């Protein structure tokens, strides 16, 4: 394998003066946040945007709180989303959505996996849900992606891809489904590609 052998996407025209789209992805280490981050970046590149992402690696990620940042648009400098500046918060776990709350404003859309991963001294599930409903003033989607993926695909692991599909088909991310599918094909290993595409399409079917 050589770096040059990777498939390269054709460069496209840059949209003029589009406002940057800022996204924070939250979850627990091991939920596949980096894969989702990479897929969105590839999709945004396919549509000709400037892109920057930020992520963390290492021990702190092992079962701990994780967040990645994705920014794309016409003129992007910082790889980090500023406090209060997220357009979309995608959280793969309910408590983690609260953890990244400060990136949101009243205009931020929350897309949250209705999945509760407990830890020592955590808030009870009902209280977390109540807090989300209380705090999030804007549009929110609490979706049982883990449960749906487990039931319909026997694979909870693709719940993030399901949510990505949900976000695209419901226009919560200003990127085309084809671009996202292209991103999935770029990033997901061949062996798991079909499963991931299925999860993505399942979100369309479920609407």
């Amino acid at each position, binding site marked *: *394998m*050589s*770096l*040059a052998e*990777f498939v*390269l*996407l054709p*460069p496209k025209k840059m949209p003029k003066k589009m406002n940057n789209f800022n996204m924070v992805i939250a979850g*627990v*280490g091991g939920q596949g946040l980096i894969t989702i*981050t*990479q897929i969105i*970046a*590839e999709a945004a*590149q396919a549509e000709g945007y*400037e*892109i*920057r*992402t*930020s*992520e*963390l*690696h*290492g*021990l*702190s*990620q*092992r*079962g*701990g*709180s994780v967040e990645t940042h994705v920014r794309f648009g016409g*003129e992007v*400098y*910082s*790889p*980090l989303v*500023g*406090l*209060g500046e997220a357009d979309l918060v995608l959280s793969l776990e309910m*408590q*983690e959505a*609260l*953890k*990244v*709350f*400060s990136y949101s404003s009243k205009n931020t859309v929350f897309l949250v996996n209705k999945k509760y991963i407990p*830890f*020592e*001294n*955590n*808030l009870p599930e009902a209280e977390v849900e109540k*807090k989300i409903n209380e*705090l999030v003033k804007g549009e929110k989607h609490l979706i049982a992606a883990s449960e749906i993926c487990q039931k319909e695909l026997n694979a909870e692991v693709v719940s993030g891809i399901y949510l990505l599909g949900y976000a695209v088909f419901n226009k919560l991310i200003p990127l085309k489904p084809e671009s996202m599918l292209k991103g999935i094909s770029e990033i997901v290993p061949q062996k798991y590609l079909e499963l991931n595409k299925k999860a993505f399409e399942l979100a369309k079917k479920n609407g």
Partner: protein
Amino acid sequence: MKKILLGNEAIVQGALEAGVQFVSTYPGTPSSEIGNVFSKIAKDNGVYFEFSTNEKVALEAAIGASFSGLKSLVAMKDFGLNVCSDSLIPFCYTGAKGPTVIVAGDDPSCWSSAQSEQNSRAFAYLAHIPILEPSDPAEAKEFTKLAFDVSDRFDLPIMLRTTTRVAHQRMPVEMGQMANGKNQMAVGEFIKDKKRFVTLPPRVLEMKAELLEKIEEVRNFTEKSKENKIIGKSKAKIGIITSGVSYLYVMEALKELKLDLPVLKLAFFYPLPEERIKGFIKNLKKVLIVEELEGFLEKEINVLAREANPKLQINGKNLLSEIGELNQIKVAFAIAHVAGKGYKIPKASPDIPKRFPRFCPGCPHTFVFNAVKKAAPEGTVFGGDIGCYMLAGMPAYNLQDYLFSMGSSIGIGHGIKKMTGQKVIAFIGDSTFFHAGIPALINTVFNKSNPLIIISDNRTTAMTGHQTNPGLGRTGMGEITPEIKIEDIVAACGVKNLKVIDPINQQELESTIQDFLNKDEVSVIVARRICIIAAKKNAKENE
């Protein structure tokens, strides 16, 4: 053609485009992916690659390759510089023969670092090593090539200093031509030259003089370098000087504040283009220095301003903390303050309980700590070391009374055991034992100390992403090599109380801990069981 690359992948790409021939590393976040990628692609790209035992050895191997005329790169995290500094400083005296780049990853905010929040720019003063600071993956690639070029021109090793937000940032990067032919590994030649490679007095003082002269030559080069640049054409009387990832925050903040201020972006932290800086500040009323951690740049500019513009109001660490990484919000606050504009800092998150990292289900370290928890008497002192097993310091284990640098669990444990009557258990992993534990173990035997050392051998360098190490019988390029057995080393150091135990055998482990804690001589348990994640990875690869 552009491809989205992680900062570390961009460094690999830059090194390949520059024609790197030798690469060595010891893994450490945020630099680990450099080694991980080379480990996969080195062979196909005509590059020799190795995971070395520690950063000092990694640098020395690269020095050997450089002295043999080869283009070399060595990568490490910030603390690795401390480990290799004993050889780094003389390497600047001798200079590099084959161009050599040292990549060091700092971690402001300590996202993935215990022990300290290090600002490795300080090595510029200690070692007189030129330092380049890229701000993003595109620059990481270009600056890697520039570093090789500068190293080639001036026969000096060059440091490429990244930070977490550069190393772990992704963006599209223009892909260039690889310089090497495929599968053509270079063969160097060491041509004897005592005057050049032997650092003995009185010659070493001449070498220092030559080094300082070279640095002035590099400074002349940086004065002209287009990578030290002024952004925009603003004639405003307030200016900003910045470098590295801070530059991105400055540009983002200026956009948000709708301000047009001149920005001097420095690629070289050392040596600084002093005339360029003086020219930039000459007609300013105020300047803001935007840099993470300690204000080294600000101190330099304070000195330059004395001559160029004594009335200049210099801002920096009065507005931006020396602790923790920056972001556009902190920078916008500072810029707004200097520009006399209002700026509201956004609200913080609701206070919710923190989810700490935890041991993976089935992690072999947990078997070790479960047994220790049961077997060790009240008052036992527990020494931690660098690896996943640091998590033993958190609840519910609470088995970590001190934590320092690689290998220090044994060294410090010896000191405590020797000078108190208390029982001491030092924990250390396999890769960390090879890295820096062995001299400390020899010291405990030599000086008749008797801590209990538990070497948790999980058959991988787990924390940084499962790199190989000397105990695994496989090199960084995937070649078969003799497996170095930890118990053989321990026995050879003269340790008599030695047992290899699979920690899943809890009773045997507990009774051995109890037995060994009462010995008059040092004792060692090698708790050997493969990391649960590594085992899964191996199973997948063998599928």
